[in-house]
């Protein structure tokens, strides 16, 4: 029997539905999450199955309902909060960072905050500067939080289920351009542990460490590179925290050349940490400096020809990799 293929959005929905069936404490808060199933239609059908007490439409109060989720998580529920665009996490930083991330520690281990925040990242949707950011570096910076960046339907489902079962606040970033991406997802229940990188493609000459949206870009670039006789390994950390440093470093040691790809802004972002970790861990094995590729350092412009150059593409990654391998 051929493996079942579903979209990224379906994978997210299945994970939620299965966990909600499994555990009556799981509930969802967010804007237009019920009948509308979110503007991206990711949650369609959930309110019909679980009712409006568990799939709860909120006012446009990101700080407010995130705070409510923190309190609900402390007292027995397992809320999943939906923040429509990742740009709106700006409104939730106090609740996530000063409350959710610290409650367990500050209470000496008494209270727990088992909640998930689902939100989006990614540009090239012509949504302009306030609807296109990939701000996951901020949460990755904060002790007490875990950050998940799925890059395939399979990973999305398995990681989201784990995130919901986790006893800590977990932020789950979905690339909004990937919702329609199809991929194999088994029917059976499975989970994927947080903190385990996945080698999405094995290779020998260069390592492309890529997160979220950039994994598909890296895989595309790897095919182009193959035609040039360059064998690229694509490593997806899958979670920026916990971070599977070993898999990253091992791959770097093997290939001795590394490009790190992430759709967040380059400076002081995820690529900096990954590059620093690899540069330190594979110091004696690298043949060239780790190259970082992230979003260009500008607010995302609306105009299509401008927006298109702000993020790494298969072509730019291909070019950079060739150059790094001394073939350009």
């Amino acid at each position, binding site marked *: 029997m051929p493996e079942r293929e579903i979209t990224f959005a379906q994978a997210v929905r299945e994970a939620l539905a299965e966990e909600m069936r499994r555990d009556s404490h799981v509930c969802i808060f967010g804007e*237009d999450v019920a*009948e509308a199933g979110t503007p991206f239609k990711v949650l369609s059908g959930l309110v019909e199955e679980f009712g409006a007490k568990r799939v709860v*439409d909120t*006012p446009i109060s990101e700080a407010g309902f995130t705070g409510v989720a923190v309190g609900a998580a402390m007292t027995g529920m397992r809320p999943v909060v939906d923040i429509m665009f990742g740009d709106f996490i700006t409104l939730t930083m106090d609740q996530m960072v000063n409350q959710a991330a610290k409650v367990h520690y500050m209470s000496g281990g008494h209270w727990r905050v088992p909640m998930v925040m689902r939100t989006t990242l990614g540009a090239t949707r012509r949504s302009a500067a306030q609807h296109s950011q990939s701000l996951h570096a901020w949460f990755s910076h904060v002790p007490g939080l875990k950050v998940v960046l799925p890059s395939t339907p399979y990973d999305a489902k398995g990681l989201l289920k784990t995130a919901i079962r986790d006893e800590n606040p977990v932020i789950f970033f979905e690339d909004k351009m990937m919702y329609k991406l199809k991929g194999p997802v088994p029917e059976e229940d499975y989970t994927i542990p947080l903190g385990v990188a996945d080698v999405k493609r094995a290779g020998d000459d260069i390592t492309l460490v890529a997160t979220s949206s950039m994994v598909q870009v890296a895989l595309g670039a790897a095919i182009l590179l193959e035609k040039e006789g360059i064998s690229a390994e694509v490593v997806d950390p899958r979670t920026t925290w916990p971070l599977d440093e070993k898999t990253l470093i091992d791959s770097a040691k093997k290939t001795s050349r590394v490009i790190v790809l992430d759709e967040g802004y380059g400076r002081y972002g995820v690529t900096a940490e990954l590059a620093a970790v690899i540069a330190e861990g594979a110091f004696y094995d690298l043949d060239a400096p780790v190259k970082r590729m992230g979003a*260009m350092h500008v607010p995302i*412009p609306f*105009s299509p020809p401008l927006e298109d*150059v702000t993020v790494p593409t298969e072509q730019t990654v291909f070019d950079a990799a060739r150059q790094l391998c001394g073939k350009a």
Partner: protein
Amino acid sequence: MTTATSNPETSSAAATEKEKWLRAYRQMVSIRLFEEQVNEVYTRALMPGLAHLYSGEEAVAVGICEALRIDDYITSTHRGHGHCLAKGASPDRMFAELLGKEAGYCRGKGGSMHIADPATGNLGANAIVGGSVGIATGAAFSARALGTDRVAVCFFGEGALGQGSLYEAMNLAQLWKLPVIYVCENNLYNEYTHYTETTAGSILGRATAFGLEAASVDGQDVRAVNEVATRLVKRARSGAGPAFLQCDTYRYSGHHVGDINREYYRSKQEEQHWRTDRDPIKVLSKWLLEQGYADAAALDGITSEVRALMEAAVKFAIAAPYPGVDEVEKHVYA
């Protein structure tokens, strides 16, 4: 009333009145036809991304902006084309912005949700619900600190009532007696959710609690909107402090141009009712005809003129060039 009309003062007042409302009529028609073109451009797959149409709500933007001076400030929303036009922007540069062209108000960098027009005091549309309440309040702070008598108007949808920043800003504005007017466009829906599901208690009460002067008005009647706006603007200009104005209105189209199947959150009858019985352009045209300020042909003439203008504007925008790729790194820092 022969005596009255023979009085030169009254008759010039009537002439002004006539001019004023014909101008308002033209402004409302401009918005309506602008949005028609936006939808058309979207349908022809010429528009990058989405847009949120203002059709149905024209009397709010026009009624308010006609009470403002050109140097007064406004802040606008994701549903901002109406505010922008009503404050005086020209459709060609707006369309250019919507298509991401260099001739656009923001050189194509902002798009529909961020159009700003310094020449007419438009501080910008904003894609963060409630995101501009601080900006409008700050503009009012400057107006006063710089010794001008400018006023700032903050437009927002009733969905922004969910955002705490609104209450923070109203508190500050009232404490400091700033010349800012918060205009709540209650079109009944936050995206796909009826506002009663997201809004407890009373809308006006949320402003009076902070000591603001508050009023509500039929947002489909441009004259009513303008009357109360004129009063609140005058009050603010004179230093008496901020105000809140709730305008009850309706958006005819979907939340955005792609929101086609809407029956799961609102009925076709409801939409039809507003279009047929509450249309702001119809309401004003009926009155203009009654007053004898225009006949049907004159009104049709306005519509034709405006339509031609909008078509030309779209053509201009389609033909206009994109910014050069080197523009991408410009304007990050001033």
